[in-house]
């Protein structure tokens, strides 16, 4: 009988390396599990059965020859549908890219392979990663494994649901304003958004180029550290990838000595968060204090303004990036008779893009248009600088910031038809992207004891200080003691 598997990447790797199991056996089980459990949550859009089995056989052959395929030996990994793979199709959850077969592979996918991991399939996401619930996906909404009437968060909702449901131990997601961390929080898994430039964006379908980062979703902080170590580093194909060497993180060395944890008071405004979310943050603060951390009060007055700033900058960048979808060289082309190329562009784009994408493209076009550029875009870029300065000042007083990842637990499908209400889901995560710092969501507890929904804690650290971030997250993970496999019971 097929069962959900809640082992970590490290456990699977170690069992394959020591011969306790084989990569082929792990992959057979994984594909069988996805066939069994995926239909109820729609996390995976497609799987690469033949290619994945062939890769698994190669891993076993290499092990038999005495080789070490790497730190992710035989580990099955899901890839978000906006990251290019040469297997299958890269659709971004959009009709625009229906059937698109990428002629090249994203650098992160190549690096996963080189570390012994096996891409097993593609996970659903909001259309062009625009959304916080994975409901804008053209392939149907993804459902939260904890309660299938609820959303998994977004936009990397397929990636978080796949990990939470025990289908695969790790997936890749992308985060432009919270799209890794918020779904990780709503599904009860770990989601790491690296510093801007830490991970190559080559092969990531561009949304907001100054904001986008690829990162892992896993069940443990240790796995997130292993995955980051594999995918990070400079890449000739991405001129914004940073030369800073990736942080080698060794966890389990006890509580980080002298850790200063900042609590931004704006993350805890009265009535802003659900009571259960507040309770979990309080519990985390108490546990950290008891373990020896210094708790520091932090002022981040621009927290709330972040959403407004973000919804000028991100749509502006999106409207520019998505101009490439014109129905000419690739992507959807309208079959309605078009008298001119201009008409063909407009028809193809209107048919290919869903409502949320159209809304953001128009918003971006508007804030960049003549007469409004200074009032909106230029002004937002100045506020972005102030947001960055605010974080810089905060990190003079503390090593990491702690708060909730999202104000609420997973909401019901269809609960947020108003775009602004949906945008506010990312209130605690967007400023991180604008400043280019790093952040992680770790599961803490559930809102109720019976049939509860998971709650995520959000830690943030300075740009390129993933070492500090992951060490603090690892320590906090041990303190809060969340059981990701409790879904099974």
């Amino acid at each position, binding site marked *: 009988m097929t069962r959900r598997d809640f082992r970590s990447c490290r456990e699977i790797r170690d069992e394959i390396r020591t011969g306790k199991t084989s990569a082929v056996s792990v992959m057979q089980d994984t594909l069988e599990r996805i066939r069994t459990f995926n239909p109820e949550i729609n996390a995976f859009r497609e799987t690469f059965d033949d290619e994945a089995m062939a890769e698994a056989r190669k891993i076993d052959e290499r092990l038999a020859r005495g080789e070490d395929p790497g730190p992710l030996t035989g580990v099955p990994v899901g890839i978000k549908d906006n990251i290019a793979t040469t297997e299958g199709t890269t659709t971004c959850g959009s009709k625009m890219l229906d059937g*698109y077969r990428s002629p090249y592979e994203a650098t992160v996918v190549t690096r996963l392979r080189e570390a012994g991991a096996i891409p097993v399939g593609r996970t659903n996401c909001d259309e062009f990663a625009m959304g916080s619930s994975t409901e804008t996906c053209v392939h149907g909404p993804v459902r939260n494994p904890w309660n299938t009437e609820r959303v998994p968060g977004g936009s990397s909702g397929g990636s978080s649901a796949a990990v939470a449901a025990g289908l695969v131990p790790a997936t890749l997601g992308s985060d432009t304003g919270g799209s890794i961390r918020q779904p990780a929080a709503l599904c009860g898994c770990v989601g790491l958004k690296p510093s801007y430039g830490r991970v190559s964006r080559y092969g990531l379908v561009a949304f907001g180029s100054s904001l986008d980062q690829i990162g892992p979703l896993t069940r443990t902080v240790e796995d997130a550290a292993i995955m980051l170590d594999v995918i990070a580093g400079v890449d000739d194909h991405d001129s914004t990838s940073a030369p800073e060497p990736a942080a080698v993180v060794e966890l389990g060395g006890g509580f980080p000595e002298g850790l200063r944890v900042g609590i931004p008071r704006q993350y805890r405004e009265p009535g802003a968060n659900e009571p259960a979310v507040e309770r979990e943050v309080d519990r985390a603060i108490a546990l950290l204090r008891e373990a020896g951390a210094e708790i520091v009060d932090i002022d981040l007055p621009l927290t709330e303004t972040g959403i407004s700033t973000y919804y000028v900058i991100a749509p502006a960048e999106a409207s520019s990036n998505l101009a490439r979808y014109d129905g000419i060289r690739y992507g959807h082309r309208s079959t309605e008779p078009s008298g001119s190329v201009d008409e063909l562009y407009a028809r193809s784009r209107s048919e290919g893009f869903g409502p949320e994408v159209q809304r953001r493209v128009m918003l971006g076009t508007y804030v960049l248009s003549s007469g409004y550029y200074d009032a909106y875009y230029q002004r937002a870029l*100045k506020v972005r600088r102030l947001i960055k300065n605010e974080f810089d000042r905060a990190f003079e007083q503390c090593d990491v910031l702690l708060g909730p990842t999202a104000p609420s637990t997973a909401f019901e499908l269809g609960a947020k038809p108003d*775009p602004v209400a949906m945008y506010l889901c990312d209130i605690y995560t967007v400023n991180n992207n604008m400043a280019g710092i790093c952040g992680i969501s770790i599961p803490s507890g559930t809102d109720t004891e019976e049939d509860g929904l998971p709650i995520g804690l959000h830690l943030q650290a300075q740009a390129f200080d993933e070492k500090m971030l992951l060490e603090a997250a690892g320590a906090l993970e041990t303190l809060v003691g969340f059981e990701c496999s409790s879904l099974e019971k």
Partner: protein
Amino acid sequence: MTGPKKNQLSIQEVEKVAKLARLKLNEDQLELYAGQLSSILEHIAELEKLEIEGVEPMAHPIPLNNRLDDDVPGDPMPVDALLRNAPEVVDSFISVPKVLGGES
């Protein structure tokens, strides 16, 4: 409410933005987007209250420098892999409607 409200988009303005964004929208869509975009702009209007005098705009989180590659030939992507995604192909060309002489 008297007169047009600030940060409110009229149907005509949405039509203009849609044209700039190369989107072809019907009446219902124009009306829906006019309402939704207006409520987003209303929310965004809070940015006007901030003091930003003398602040340097920040377009990017890290300093961007031109990175020059050595000019060495690489392996180009195979033409058939690139063309297989094209909606309409004639021989090794991508086919499009007439560009000149159509609608001005």
